[in-house]
């Protein structure tokens, strides 16, 4: 008996040891070179890791768009997705265990981290051989974003459209009742909020806890985006918005609105649905949480319309049309009536698709697959099929040559974006507009906000940065800190601003990040 026990104990100990050792070992050492002589007619099965899609992975793999892509490209693809929370943690584990993914669709931050640690395949030379259509349909500017020391490490996926999309939406019904004009200047805006607040019996302006820069308001102080160029003492330099010359004035203005009782007390705890509810309640009588103005994103318009309908403010027929009697959109305020109008215009790269270093050998197949998806010519319109579907089934041409979705068939295409790896930049914006046309009010809002976009739009320079050492290390802590401090100063005013800026620039690393982004801006940014 004793013997058996000691033998068992010994085996258990050995097992523990082996498990511990194998857990540490096993890193692949070969396969780091791209095989340029593969036979593309002998297609292999591909494995692709995508960000969390909001659907179960079974639904993703059986999605009609996935099937369509398989038909169009001839590659059989299995998709796996990262979890919704702690995606980067899981991504790290996947790399540590070298899970064989031919392609990984990454956020720009994840891409920067992985490139820094030398974990992605340099695809510069392979692109010419395997992906000529990708090269032809992605702009020079976009390639900059994925280039480190002159070498390319991923396929950039540019945002669908450069939108002006951060308005304050106003309760136009209420404004008409109160005989108010759409405000243009800070003073007029305050007067509107005052009148609305008195009528509603509740603070007129609401927003959610993720809105540190009310773009419509900050525009009047020359602050448009997170990172932009300012002229300071005759010198031009890029700064983070908290370091903008007139940031203090912006905060002081917001703080005065707060102190006068025009801003929702609960903004620091509101999520988007709270804010939408408050805004929609402003159309109804009765007591409770209400607001007449809502600093939101353009994409919230859909939920506002839905919510107006479900609260019986508008009828089903009205919801299917334009709502110019109910809503109006304010994109930028001005300091005085003569000042030029400037406003933040979003852009950037939602994703970058890259190949993990241990899967380099078969990179050719993966590039070939992506190349095939992006093709969009007379004969081979793969990209259009994936994004829009068939003419006559999913969409038809409008009189101006735009693409009009055909409901309900077009709903199939709602998920198409999950399956994109880089877009055909020459075509995508036009195709994508079909999504905005789906709801007339959304399209009206978009069209109004986009008027003269090229003249008034100011970009966020951070949307175009390649991986930059210190900038990438500190960006999120800088932005997080700025957001936190906004809600504090909104209540307490600018008294501690110099301490806060000192903390931002030193402890949070904003000074280092700013230096990095300025160097890049001077040396390489060509826009």
């Amino acid at each position, binding site marked *: 008996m004793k013997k058996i026990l000691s033998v068992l104990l010994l085996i258990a100990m050995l097992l523990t040891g082996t498990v511990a050792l194998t857990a540490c070992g096993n890193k692949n050492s070969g396969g780091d070179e791209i095989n340029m002589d593969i036979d593309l007619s002998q297609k292999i099965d591909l494995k692709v890791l995508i960000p969390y899609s909001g659907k179960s992975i079974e639904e993703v793999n059986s999605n009609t768009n996935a099937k369509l892509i398989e038909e169009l490209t001839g590659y059989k693809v299995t998709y796996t997705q990262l979890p919704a929370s702690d995606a*980067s943690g899981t991504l790290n584990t996947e790399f540590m265990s070298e899970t064989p993914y031919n392609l990984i669709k990454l956020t720009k*931050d994840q891409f920067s981290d992985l490139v820094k640690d030398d974990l992605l395949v340099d695809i510069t030379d392979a692109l010419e051989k395997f992906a000529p259509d990708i090269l032809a349909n992605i702009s020079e500017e976009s390639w900059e974003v994925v280039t480190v020391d002159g070498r390319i490490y991923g396929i950039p996926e540019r945002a669908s459209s450069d939108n002006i999309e951060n308005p304050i939406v106003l309760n136009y019904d209420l404004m008409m009742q109160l005989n108010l004009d759409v405000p243009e200047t800070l003073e007029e805006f305050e007067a509107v909020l005052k009148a609305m607040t008195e009528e509603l019996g509740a603070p007129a302006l609401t927003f959610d806890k993720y809105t540190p820069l009310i773009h419509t308001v900050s525009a009047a102080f020359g602050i448009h985006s997170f990172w932009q160029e300012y002229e300071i003492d005759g010198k031009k330099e890029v700064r983070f918005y908290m370091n903008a010359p007139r940031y203090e004035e912006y905060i002081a203005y917001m703080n005065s609105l707060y102190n006068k009782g025009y801003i929702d007390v609960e903004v620091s705890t509101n999520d988007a649905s709270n804010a939408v509810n408050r805004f929609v309640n402003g159309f109804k009588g009765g007591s409770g949480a209400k607001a007449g103005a809502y600093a939101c994103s353009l994409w919230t318009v859909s939920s506002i319309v839905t919510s107006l309908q479900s609260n019986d403010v508008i009828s089903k027929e009205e919801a299917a049309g334009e709502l110019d009697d109910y809503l109006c959109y304010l994109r930028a305020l001005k300091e005085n009536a003569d000042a030029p109008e400037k406003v933040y215009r979003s852009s950037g790269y939602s994703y970058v698709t890259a190949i993990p270093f241990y899967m380099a050998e078969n990179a050719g197949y993966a590039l070939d697959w992506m190349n095939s998806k992006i093709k969009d010519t007379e004969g081979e319109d793969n990209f259009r099929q994936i994004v829009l579907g068939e003419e006559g089934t999913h969409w038809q041409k409008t009189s101006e040559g735009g693409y009009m979705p055909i409901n309900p068939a077009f709903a199939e295409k709602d998920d198409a974006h999950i399956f994109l790896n880089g877009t055909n930049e020459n075509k995508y914006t036009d195709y994508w507009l079909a999504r905005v046309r789906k709801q007339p009010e959304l399209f009206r809002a978009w069209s109004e906000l986009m008027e003269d976009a090229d003249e008034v739009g100011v970009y966020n320079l951070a949307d175009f940065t390649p991986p930059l050492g210190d900038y990438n290390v500190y960006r999120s*802590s800088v932005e997080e800190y700025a957001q936190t401090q906004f809600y504090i100063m909104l209540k307490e005013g600018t008294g501690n601003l110099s301490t806060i800026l000192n903390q931002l620039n030193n402890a949070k690393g904003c000074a280092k990040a700013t230096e990095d982004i300025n160097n890049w801006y001077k040396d390489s940014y060509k826009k």
Partner: protein
Amino acid sequence: MSSRKNKLTLVDKTKKYKSLIPFVIPAVLFALVFSYLPMVGILIAFKDHPNFLRYEVFEAFSKSKWTLANFEKLFSDPDILKYIGNTLIISVMKIVILFPLPVILAVMITELRSKKFSKLVQGLVFLPHFFSWVVIVGIFNNIFGMYGPINNIGSALGMDPVHFMGEPGWVRWLVVILSGWKEIGYSSIAYIAAIMSIDPALYEAAKIDGAGKFKQIWKITIPSIMPTIIVMLIIRIGYLMDAGFEQVYAMLNPNTLETGEIIGTYVYRLGFLAGSTDYGLSTAVGLFNGVISLLLILGANYISKKKTGNGVW
């Protein structure tokens, strides 16, 4: 190990109790594999960004330089002391206010005459334990909101509405209240079990001697479950540096950081928000927390042994 005759040496003990040894093997193995082996990882706190994703563990380890930078960063931050303070204050408040409640609840539940009703109450008070903090905080955001029932009652009594969730003065109390609401029922399980195992003969004897309900509870129930209470308290004190990350993270907002930010949430903000592979700093904080917790637990056990004769070891 002592040479005194009345104490057994380790070898003697091993010989005397050898038949019991196989029973502890699984536990020892478990501790070795899951608690002691990973301790090697503490070394990461002293390394400069080892690249584990690209290289084998040992190779990555030897490639990176030794450094104390993580500890410098940790202790040079002027805010860290404030957050350690918040952590301790919230933890102590939780222990002082919440620790006795499950004992009282357990006594009340076991004193119920109707077994059915007792089961029902148990089920109901356990239930909140199984909700996630995000859900609970969402519910209480509404209850304590500007337009929620608490403020409605307040304004009916002529008070100004208060944004409780956004008031630095309220956040610690709310953390305690919510934590109590969620966990009291579940924490009472251990005490209920302890009370069930008290010999009923003791109560019968007490009744014959003319002791009332309260006397019975005070003289029999409480002393009988005292060892359980002490063990739970010592274990609880070991978690003093952890004031409930998940709960506090869900409850915090910019306006309450000043009084509500604890070490756990601060480190999360510092390191993980960036989504980076920088595990060094959090390991350093983990080590620091671990050392303090160990000291606290040793201290609590020592005092308890001195005063009551009960201890974990």
